[in-house]
């Protein structure tokens, strides 16, 4: 990983402290009751939302066997591959990128065990030496709130996107509700994620994210909220974007 540091551009999205934090928990990525348990709970809902968005965008039917065959997808900030693997099953030719070597190791082993072919790479999207061509779909889920430089990161994402492609991002809004729920409740009360996982000040409002995307030559086409249902312990799609939201954009 250190030899990457010499080649990386002067401005980088890498936040070494954040990367070290995720690396220390990397062994738990696939543990449904471990530190990433909330991601396991959230995962089916966000996969559903994105699959529906992508099926509409590419006019594919999810009832088909490998509905997204022939399309390339890059999952940036893929961690252990919780989202990368489902999209590989849906027929995408899939790459996964993460700044943490430890996470990529876990992701590679898991994909092998699951019998899936995924091109996993260590790095950040703006870095040029990656074996990562342009993609029909680029995902950056629950990652922008962890990067050092959001503009550099988004420019890197835009660069990985082919014309007519779709970028999907999800993150946490910076509202009083998200401070209480995502930061306070999830980290300290429910103990869903280790305290210190999130820095509320780094949460991004949809308007701010849209502006950064516009500067990078992208146009926002859709935004949806995700809300947690205390009664069922599941997540639902909603128009309420005050805590978690999913935003999609295309090259303008």
């Amino acid at each position: 990983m250190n030899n990457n540091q010499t080649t990386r551009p002067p401005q980088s999205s890498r936040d070494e402290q954040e990367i070290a934090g995720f690396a220390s928990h990397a062994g738990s990525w696939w543990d449904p009751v471990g530190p990433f348990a909330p991601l396991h709970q959230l995962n089916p809902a966000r996969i559903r939302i994105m699959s529906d968005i992508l099926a509409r965008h590419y006019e594919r039917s999810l009832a088909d066997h490998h509905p997204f065959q022939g399309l390339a997808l890059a999952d940036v900030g893929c961690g252990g591959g919780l989202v990368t693997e489902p999209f590989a099953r849906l027929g995408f030719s899939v790459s996964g990128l993460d700044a943490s070597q430890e996470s990529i190791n876990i992701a590679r082993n898991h994909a092998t065990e699951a019998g899936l072919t995924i091109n996993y790479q260590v790095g950040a999207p703006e870095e040029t030496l990656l074996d990562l061509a342009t993609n029909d779909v680029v995902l950056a889920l629950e990652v922008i709130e962890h990067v050092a430089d959001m503009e550099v990161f988004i420019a890197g994402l835009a660069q990985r996107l082919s014309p007519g492609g779709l970028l999907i991002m999800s993150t946490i809004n910076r509202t009083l509700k998200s401070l209480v729920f995502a930061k306070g409740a999830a980290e300290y009360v429910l103990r869903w994620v280790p305290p210190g996982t999130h820095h509320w000040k780094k949460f991004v409002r949809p308007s701010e994210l849209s502006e950064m995307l516009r500067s990078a030559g992208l146009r926002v086409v859709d935004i949806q909220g995700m809300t947690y249902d205390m009664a069922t312990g599941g997540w639902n799609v909603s128009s309420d974007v005050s805590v978690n939201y999913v935003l999609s954009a295309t090259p303008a």
Partner: protein
Amino acid sequence: MNKTDITCDVVIVGGGLIGTTLACGLAAYGVDVAVVDRITPENIISPDFDGRASAIAHTSKVALEGIGLWPIIAGETQPIDEIRVSDRPSLMFLHYDHADLGDNPLGHMAENRLLRTGLVTLMHQTQGLTVLAPAEITEVARTEGRAAVALDDGRTINCQLVAACDGRASATRTQAGIGVTGWTYKQQAIVTTIDHERSHDGIAHERFLSSGPFAILPLKGGHRSSLVWTEKSALVGSFMALDDGAFLDEVAERVGGFLGDVSLVGPRFCHPLGLQVAERYMDTRLVLVGDAAHSIHPIAGQGLNLGLRDVAALMDILVDAKRYGLDLAHSAGLERYQRWRRADNLLMAGMTDMINRLFSNDIAPVRMARDLGLAAVNSMPPLKRTFMRHAMGQVGDLPKLMRGEALG
């Protein structure tokens, strides 16, 4: 990897009614399945294998329509238009008439052999379904990343999820270290089939005799019925040992004269009765389905219906997961299955246990109290309708398949 190894989405352990129904249902929606059983389907449908008949609740029928089994067997099923519950020698009885609840019959009777034969036909017609039988499982290895089922012929089936449909004594459940709680009833069910002179008119009878409930269940054609005779375990051996003539006399005595002359058709079977519930319905890449998860007293004819509800609920979850590329064993899905089915199954287990205890009893005050209870239920239409809805399977949060909706 051995070149004869198999890869599929779900391995179903056990090719019984629940296992094969689940297999046909999942395969119909594009989930690749392999069914493993010790016994070949041809042996399972022989007349000596299973002499029981099952009451198919209305919602179960809807589910069987959804997977395509119902059209194959419908012509051989018998609608249940009425259920008469009586406590001899008392004259008080409870009378359920389907007309109280609308046009649908209360359920249908189907001989298990008919269901099994229909399922074999359906399996042959279904793509994406592999039957591995006769085969013995030597190991079920389940890790966070995948599951592998090893067979005694040296082959291994790699899959995402193992569904244990291997019945009350599930070896898969035991191997997974999932405990059970329950008790035996010190009763056994003697099951046999009779022909009778007069028509049953689509009426099912349940008699509460001193040894336990005695059910006369109408079969196709009007002149054939399935009997479920609950008897104290200590006496079962002597009844099973009787020659046909003496056994028929015992049967005729319990049926009473209302069906005219009766004769025995086919062999007699006996099944020990108990209540058993698994502590959990899931483990890493494993789910328990049907009797492997719960087995109950047959008094209300609900065992198969509960198993079919498990199948329908699991199909809801797995077909959705397959459609969205999710790991079929993803924890949120398996937890939902467990939450969904466990409460419903426990409720039914408790109800059947209570009814059996109340009615397998010959103490005069208890008998009088239950007679008054039966009469009271009969005179209170709302309570009676609730019981009937339970019998028809229309209570609780129904899976899509049981609401007649398409999945995926």
